[in-house]
C-alpha cells in the first residue's frame, strides 16, 4: 500500500518535472529547429550549454526538451487513439457476441502475432515523414490489449445482478451502458492508456532512430539519438547520454504511474502491456 503510494508519487513528480522541462525550456529559449551555428558544433557540456551541442551547433539542453515534448505528445495521442479504438472494438465485440465476437477475437490474435514495429516500418516507409502515419502505425498495432481487457470486463459485468436488475426494470440498452458499463470500463481503459504510453514513446523514437519517422531537423528523442550514432564516433558522448536519459526517465516515470494505477484498479497482472 505504502509502496504503491510511493511509486505513484515518485512517478507523478518525475513526470511533472519532465513535462515542465519539455514545455518551458523550448518556449523560453524560443529557437528555431532549423537555425544552425557550425562554429559552436560538437561542444561538450559547459555552463553555456549544460548538455553540450550537436553536430549543427544546436544547444542540446533545448533540443532534448523539444524532443521530449514531441515524443510525449505523439505518445499521448497514440495512447488515447489506441485506447479509444480498443475500447470500442472490445465493447462492441462483447455486445455483439456469437460469431462476430469470435471473429474479432481472432483478429486480435492475428494483429498480436505480427511484430508491431514491422507494421510500423512498412506504414511509415510508404508515408515518409508524416506524423499522421507514425501515429496511425502505433495506434493501429496497440489497440488489441485494450480490446481484450474491455471485452472481458463487459462480459463479466453483463451477467452481474445489478445489470440484470436494471434490464428487468425496463432500462434501455443505452441507459445500462451509460450507467453501469461505462463507469466500470473507463478506469480500466485509463490504466491501459497509461501503460501504453511508454510503448508509444519507444515506437516513435525507434522509427525516427531508423530514419523513417520525423525528418532529422525536427527534434524528437529518436532523431536526437540517431544523430548521436554518428556523433559518438567523434567522441560526443553527451549526444547519447542526455537524450537517452530523457527517454529512460520518461519511460520509468510513466511506467511507475501506470503500474501504481493498475494495482489500484486491481487489474489482473497479465494485463500489463509488454513491449
Amino acid at each position: 500500500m505504502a509502496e504503491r503510494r510511493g511509486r505513484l508519487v515518485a512517478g507523478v513528480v518525475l513526470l511533472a518535472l519532465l513535462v515542465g522541462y519539455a514545455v518551458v525550456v523550448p518556449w523560453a529559449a524560443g529557437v528555431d529547429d532549423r537555425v544552425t551555428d557550425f562554429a559552436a558544433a560538437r561542444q561538450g557540456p559547459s555552463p553555456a550549454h549544460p548538455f553540450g551541442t550537436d553536430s549543427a551547433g544546436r544547444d542540446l539542453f533545448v533540443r532534448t526538451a523539444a524532443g521530449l515534448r514531441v515524443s510525449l505528445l505523439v505518445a499521448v495521442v497514440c495512447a488515447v487513439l489506441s485506447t479509444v479504438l480498443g475500447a470500442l472494438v472490445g465493447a462492441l465485440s462483447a455486445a455483439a457476441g456469437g460469431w462476430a465476437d469470435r471473429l474479432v477475437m481472432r483478429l486480435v490474435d492475428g494483429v498480436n502475432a505480427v511484430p508491431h514495429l514491422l507494421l510500423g516500418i512498412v506504414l511509415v516507409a510508404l508515408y515518409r515523414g508524416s506524423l499522421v502515419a507514425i501515429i496511425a502505425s502505433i495506434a493501429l498495432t496497440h489497440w488489441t490489449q485494450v480490446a481484450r481487457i474491455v471485452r472481458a470486463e463487459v462480459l463479466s459485468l453483463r451477467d452481474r445482478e445489478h445489470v440484470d436488475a436494471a434490464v428487468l426494470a425496463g432500462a434501455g440498452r443505452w441507459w445500462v451502458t451509460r450507467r453501469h458499463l461505462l463507469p466500470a470500463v473507463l478506469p480500466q481503459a485509463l490504466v491501459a492508456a497509461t501503460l501504453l504510453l511508454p510503448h508509444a514513446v519507444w515506437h516513435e523514437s525507434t522509427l525516427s532512430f531508423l530514419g523513417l519517422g520525423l525528418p532529422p531537423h525536427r527534434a524528437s528523442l529518436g532523431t536526437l539519438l540517431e544523430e548521436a550514432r554518428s556523433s559518438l564516433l567523434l567522441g560526443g558522448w553527451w549526444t547519447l547520454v542526455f537524450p537517452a536519459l530523457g527517454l529512460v526517465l520518461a519511460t520509468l516515470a510513466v511506467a511507475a504511474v501506470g503500474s501504481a494505477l493498475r494495482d489500484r484498479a486491481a487489474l489482473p497482472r497479465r494485463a500489463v502491456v509488454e513491449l
Partner: protein
Amino acid sequence: MAARRLLLALPVLLGVSVAVFAAAAASPFDPLAGYLGDRYLTAGQEVQDRIAGELGTDRAWWVQYGWWLGELLTGDLGTSRSYAQPVAQVVAERLPWTLLLVGVALALAVVLALLLGTWSAHRRGGWVDRLVTPVCLLVQAVPPFVVALGAVSVFGLALGWLPVAGLTDAGAELSAGQVARHLVLPAAVLAVSQLPWLLLNVRESLLRALAEDHVVAARARGLSERTVVLRHALPTALLPFVTLVGARLPELVVGAVLVEEVFSWPGLAQAVVTSAVEVDFPLLAFLTLLTTAAVLLGSLLADVAYVLLDPRVSADG
C-alpha cells in the same frame, strides 16, 4: 492449441500481405518512380505510361496483389531495387547471418535467465536477488538501440575491446574467428535487451514452484537442496518460461532490426530497414511476410514444446 495456431497462420499471412499492398496503393508512394529512380524525371509521359503498362503498375492494387501472390507461389520473389539483386538472393545471402545472431542471442538470454533466475529465487533476498530485480526493471525501460549505442561507446570506442560494425574488419577475409569477434557485441546487446522479461519470469515461477506441495515433500524426504531445486522445482517453473519465450519472439525480431542496424550486421533485419528507407517494395513486402511467418512458426514451436513438456496438456485442447 497447436492446431488453432496453424489455422490462424494462413489468414494472418494473407491479411498482412493484403494490408501491405492496400497501404502501398493508398500511400503517396509511386511504384513507377521507385522503379525508374532518377530516370523518372527525365522520362517523358509516354515512356512512363508505356513502362507502367508493361509493369502493370497502372492496374488496380488487388490485380497486382494477385500477380504477386501467383509469382510468390511459383517461387518468383521479384527483384530488389536497393540491392540490385533478385529478392531470393538477398534473402539467401542474409538469412544465415540473422539466424546466427538471433540464435546466439536467444541461447545466451535463455541460459543467463535460467542461471540467474534460478540463483536469485534459490537464494532469495541474497545480494544477487536484490540486484537482479532493479537492474531488470531499468533495462526494461531502455530501448534496445540505446543499449546498443551504449555498448558501442563503452566497449567499442572507450575501451576498444571489440569491433563495433560489420562481419569482419575492413578488408579482412571472412573467417570464423573474425565473425565470432564481431558477433560478441551485437549478440550480447540483443540478449541483454530480452533478458529482463525472461529472468523475472523464471524467478517468479520458481519462487511459486518452491512453495508447492511436492517440493515441500521432497525437502521433507531429506533430498539435497540441489536435487530439490533442479529436479523438483525447476521443471514446473520451465513451462511458463517456454510459453514466454514463444510470446517474446516478435520482440526478439524487433530487437534484431535495431541491433543489426546499429552494428551494420549484414542480416535480413538490416535489409528490412534499407528496403523501407528506399521504399524497395518487392523486398519490403516479402520480408514483412517472411518475418511474420517466422514469428508464427516460432510461437507454434513454443506451443508444441509446451505440449511435449507437460503431459497434463492435451494436444488438441
